[in-house]
């Protein structure tokens, strides 16, 4: 992020405007969560429902360890460690029940 967190008054952008789009990604909301979503890659059909329902864009397609027999898709959806807030919407909406919310443990 080019924008300074604590500018001097001469460094302050005009009208306090922020010129860089998307700098929110510098703030890792992942440390908010108490629970995290674990996906069973065998149950995930990569439909993308969890992805379109995640308020924090914290679902990402990850290459499967071992694609099921005859599978059309090489990826399944896992969570974004840095941003997932652990709300559990993905687990609640997953049509195949592939996601369970587990307590976040010290990693």
């Amino acid at each position: 992020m080019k924008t300074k967190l604590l500018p001097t008054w001469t460094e302050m952008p005009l009208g306090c405007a922020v010129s860089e789009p998307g700098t929110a990604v510098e703030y890792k909301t992942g440390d908010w969560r108490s629970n995290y979503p674990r996906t069973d890659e065998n149950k995930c059909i990569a439909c993308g429902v969890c992805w379109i329902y995640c308020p924090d864009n914290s679902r990402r397609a990850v290459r499967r360890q071992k694609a099921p027999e005859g599978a059309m898709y090489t990826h399944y959806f896992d969570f974004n460690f840095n941003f997932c807030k652990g709300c559990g919407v993905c687990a609640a909406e997953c049509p195949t029940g592939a996601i369970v919310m587990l307590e976040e443990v010290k990693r």
Partner: protein
Amino acid sequence: MSGRITPGKPIGMEVSIAQAEVVAQCDVDCIAAYPITPQTHIVEHLAELVADGDLDAAFMPVESEHSAMSACIGMSAVGARTFTATSSQGLALMHEMLYIASGMRLPIVMSCVNRALSAPINIWGDQSDIMAERDTGWVQIFTENGQEVIDQTICAFKIAEDHRVTLPTIVNMDGFQMSHVIEPMVFYPTGKIRDFLGVYQPLQRLDPRDPKMFGPVGIPEVYTETKKAHDVALIDSQAVIEEIWEKFAREFGRSYAAVEPYRTEGADYLLVTIGGLGETASVAIDELRAAGVKVGQIRLRLWRPFPHEKIRQALAGVKGVIVFDRCLSVAGTGGPAATEIKASLYNLPQRPTVVGFIGGLGGRDVTVGDFRAMIQKGIDYIDRGAAPIYEMVGVRE
């Protein structure tokens, strides 16, 4: 243009109409305004000019003054040269947006036709509307006659849009006594005005090709620095304003200064005025000088940034200063000009007595005779060391 203007020779025209004509000459892009007496003629004439095809601009008749300033903010934020006009209750209604416009550094130009604030409702001229907006961070200029309105309106766009300033700017005129009066004024060729102003080049704008965020949450860690930058920008704008007035004088022939002296040579006492009644006061000065009273006048034209140095220089070496305000800060320190002048002079090792009078409220006329009496009373207070904090004049007892 509409055909009313012939550049060069003085034309008799209602000052409001003249301002609208000049705003059109300045190639404004967007106008958002709401009608309120006594500003209405300005926006009506702008609407006519747009409807006739004499002005290529968006004219937006919004549903309140608060929305007028809000729309102006949106217009200016995409890089449009933006104008609005208001008075009194309308100015008061857009109060919160004034801070926001200047905080966002948007060079909106506004004409404020000074009118009293309710209650009781009063549509006539005084300065209580604009004096309630001193802290909003805008450049604020006062005028005394129609010619000054034309000239300062042109300069206002150039001042506001200058990259060293980038601040919204208000041009004040007296309600009715200036806005609705027909005066002889000299207009300039449109091309010359447009050359003087140039095309507005915003320092930043809302543009999908380069996305920016205007108006984020200014957390405590940055709010102070933003306000400091704003403060310095407004203070430093005085030098830019004076530079622009000098350039205006060279190109258009009329000079303006932040503070203007009138017959101050050898004066023991000075009258300070702000706004259109200053011209009436000048006649009183002439009469008193003819009677041997050593009194002169200082006209305050630049109100924000407050021209401390120029005021101190202008008021140096006299026994006393009489300040006439057309606004009352109820049970406070008196009139705004008097209060601010006192504050500016307070820490000087040598300072004159300042006597503040308040009059002309709610459109009450202040005559030459009233000014003479006021000055004489002020001189008496000064000589006796008996100046009150402030005094309202012209009150029926």
